[in-house]
Structures are given as C-alpha cells and as structure tokens.
C-alpha cells in the first residue's frame, strides 16, 4: 500500500508488558535467587529464544509474545509504544534436554548429564540441570543407570514416544475443555467458530495437539510422534485443502455480525464475523476467493502445521524482527 504512512522504527524500548505465571514471581528463598531471563536454544527451531528460570532455577518458563499490528499501551499516565503482550508460562525442561540427549545418543553410551548438556553457544543451558522437573522426570525419556551414587543416562526413543503421547493426551483434554476450534478451518486463521456445533472428531483434536507439541520438539521427533499416534501424514495441502474449504463455505452459511465492508482484509482475517445479513451473503463469493488465496499462502510449507492456533504467538527470539534479542525491540 503506497498511501500507508511510513512508521519510524521503534528503537528505544525499556518497558515490557507481561502476563506471568504466579509461580514465576513468587518471592525467592535466597536474596540473590531472583528469576533470570535467558536465551536458550529453541528445541524446535534451534535458534536463540527467550526463556526464564524461576527463583533458584527451580522451574523453566518460556516467553512468548502476543503481537498484533498497530497496538500501543496506556500504562497509567504514560504511553508505551510497543503493543506486544508477553506471556511467561511454565515449560517442561525435558523439551530442552532432549536435543542434547539425542545428539549424543549415537554413541550409545550411558553418560552423565553434565557431560551431555553442554552448549558453547548457550552456556546457561547447564542451569537446566537444576530444574526440579529435570531430576524428577528424566527417567521418562532416558534409561537410567546408577553407578557409585552417580546417575548415568541414555536416550530412549520408545520412552520418549510414550512420554510425548501422554503430553498429546493431556493437551487434547485441555483443548476439549477450552472452546478452541480445532477443525481444518483453523489452519487458515480465517475460521468461523460455531460454538453450538462441537462435532470436531477425535482426529482433529489429536492433530491439533500434535501441532502444539511439535513446536517444542525437532521435526524428526514430530514425524516419529505422528507415526506413534497412528495418524497418517497429512496430504499435501494443495490437494487436500481447497475442496474442504469450498465445502465449508457453501454448505454452512457464513455467520457474520457486522458489516464486512468496514474491514480491510487483514482485519477480517483476524476477527471472524459471527452472523450474516442478507447484504453480506452477496459478499460470500468474494470471500471464497479470498480464502483460496489464504490457503495458497499458508499451504506450501509444512510449517503451517506448526502454527495451529488461530492467533499468533511469536517465539521471542532474535531471528524475528518482531521480537528481537533479549527484549530489545529494534522496531518492526
């Protein structure tokens, strides 16, 4: 859009709005046991992302940013330009240990954890060993041997698959409790939530949960998990999606609450309308082509599978300019 006013880059940023788990901001037991924001290797992408160690490294948290275009905050009597909302939520440190365990698994030896979890690029990763969950549940992904009071570990693919399957089951339960729509339409972000019709099949839930978990594991593990869950690999989106989309549009009436014409395309993508008036029905045709374009836009890469949520949460990493290095906003 040529008429769009160019915005000056947001270079100065010293304030962040976050929603943090209460456990992350509980008072530390020691005076110098404050939580630490650190960069760790993202177990899915391998690039640096922002995480937080709770007081005394007891728990690990991930930091994700909810980021919509053109938002700013009023905080009391100040303006804060960066409209992001960061979420600090607990994350299982095992996701982060797995890549290190798998890396040395080829040697087939039992090893000490301290020998395996070493990363020149991310020296803070050794703090992962202090997490409570690490000690408690490492046996869920590795075989354990105790020799002379020391514990040695070896990565186990079977155990890991079982562990991940339990995660999927748990996520499916959480999805069913929430009113998140898990049907195929979600993948295009322009989905219509029909609250009264909760007839998503079990496979939709499984796939959605698998997609969520895949954001925490490597691509290889994600594929193995898909096999373990006995889910067939998704057909190439080009073959599978357009007909189903078409059916969705033509079979069920699109419900819209407000006037379509008020929205530009990006607004529409983000805020699906609910009810439909007669005037809007005539716009359904325009809509269909729009959806086609959307699916074409999202389909070619397998990555779509990894973004199963209708809304976007970004990893806070230095690889995306939406969320630059260590909270340092360099503009978008």
């Amino acid at each position, binding site marked *: 859009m040529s008429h769009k006013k160019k915005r000056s880059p947001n270079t100065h940023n010293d304030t962040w709005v*976050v929603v943090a788990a209460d456990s992350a*901001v509980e008072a530390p037991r020691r005076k110098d046991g*404050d939580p*630490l924001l650190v960069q760790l290797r993202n177990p899915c992408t391998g690039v640096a992302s922002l995480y937080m160690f709770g007081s005394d490294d007891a728990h690990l948290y991930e930091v994700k940013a909810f980021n919509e275009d053109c938002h700013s905050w009023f905080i009391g009597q100040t*303006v804060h330009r960066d409209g992001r909302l960061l979420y600090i939520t607990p994350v299982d440190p095992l996701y982060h240990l797995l890549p290190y365990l798998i890396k040395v698994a080829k040697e087939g030896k039992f090893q000490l954890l301290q020998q395996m979890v070493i990363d020149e690029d991310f020296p803070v990763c050794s703090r992962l060993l202090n997490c409570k969950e690490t000690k408690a549940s490492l046996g869920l992904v590795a075989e354990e041997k105790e020799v002379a009071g020391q514990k040695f570990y070896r990565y186990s693919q079977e155990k890991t698959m079982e562990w991940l399957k339990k995660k999927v089951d748990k996520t499916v339960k*959480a999805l069913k409790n929430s*009113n998140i729509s898990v049907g195929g339409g979600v993948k295009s972000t322009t989905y219509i939530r029909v609250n009264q019709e909760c007839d998503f099949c079990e496979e939709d839930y499984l796939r959605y949960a698998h997609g969520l978990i895949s954001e925490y594991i490597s691509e290889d593990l994600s594929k193995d998990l898909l096999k373990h869950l006995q889910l067939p690999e998704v057909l190439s989106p080009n073959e599978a999606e357009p007909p189903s989309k078409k059916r969705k549009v033509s079979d069920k009436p699109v419900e819209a609450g407000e006037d379509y014409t008020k929205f530009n395309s990006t607004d529409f993508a983000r805020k699906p309308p609910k009810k439909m008036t007669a005037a809007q029905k005539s716009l359904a045709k325009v809509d269909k082509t729009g959806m086609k374009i959307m699916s074409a836009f999202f389909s070619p890469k397998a990555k779509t599978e990894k973004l199963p949520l209708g809304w976007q949460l970004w990893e806070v990493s230095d690889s995306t300019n939406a969320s630059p290095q260590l909270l340092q906003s360099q503009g978008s």
Partner: protein
Amino acid sequence: MSRSLWLMIARVKLLFFLLPERLLRFCLAFGFILLRMCSNASVITVQLGSLGQADKPQIHLLPCEIEHDGPAEVSRYFTPTVKDHKNEMSVSFRGRGLKGAEINCPQGYTGLVLKEDNKAASDQEDRTVRISSVFHRFTYWNLETKPNSDDGVVMAMTWPALAEAVSVC
C-alpha cells in the same frame, strides 16, 4: 642469486600485504563469535524485591500504534471520555470511535510491567529489570468492532492454560 632474493622480498611483501587483512578477518570472525556467545550468555535479572513498590495503574491496549514512549495526560484527555453503558465501553480517541472491554489475566497469572532503568551499554553486559507496575485486568479497545470472544487478545488469554497442558508432566 639476485633473482631469488627478489623473489624472497616479493614473498615477504606479499605476506605483509596479506597479513593485516587476514588478521582483520580472523579478528572479525573471532569477535563475532565472541559477541554472539556473550549475548547468548548474558542474562536479565528480574528484581522481585521491587514488587512491593510497584504501582497499580489503569492499563489500556489501544488499536493503534502511537509513535511515542513516555508521559501523556491520559487521565485528563482519555479516561474522562470513556462511556460505560450496560457493560459496553466506548470512547472517542482522535475522532475515532473505539469500543472496549475489560479483560482479566487468567487464573494463576499476574500482569506485570517490567522496566529497565539503566540501559546496558553493550549486549554483553548482564541486565536488570524491575517490576514497575502490577495489574490483574486491563481494558482493550477495538476500532469500531464490538469486543467479542474472537478478538485476538481474548484468544491469547487462553494460551497459559494450553501451555500448561503442553508442558507440565
């Protein structure tokens, strides 16, 4: 004899010519690695002790980017014009009608505003942030559309529950 001497000088010259560049390249490469390592290794401490002094301001999420960071007379020009009719909030901001709603932080979660008072001179340094404000709810504003459960920020608030299912074993 003289021929081989010249050759030697030429070689030495060549060596001198090459050396600084090589050195520079090496340093650059090394420096880059060092810098990257340091920035990955640097940590930001969240000073929890500051929680006691944190204020509890009103917070609004606006549907526009304001190219400013700093003080503004929000309570003089913005909050007095907020109308609250039967739980439907509206306000006129710069001639635009905004429709808003209050949104709560999920259970077990607290809203914080983190502030870095002393900006680190380089990204190698360890940094500290303090908690300048605490909130449990805020008001988000849509441009003209009525707030509903499909709004991005409402959906985003379901993330913590999901994240816990994905992560807690």
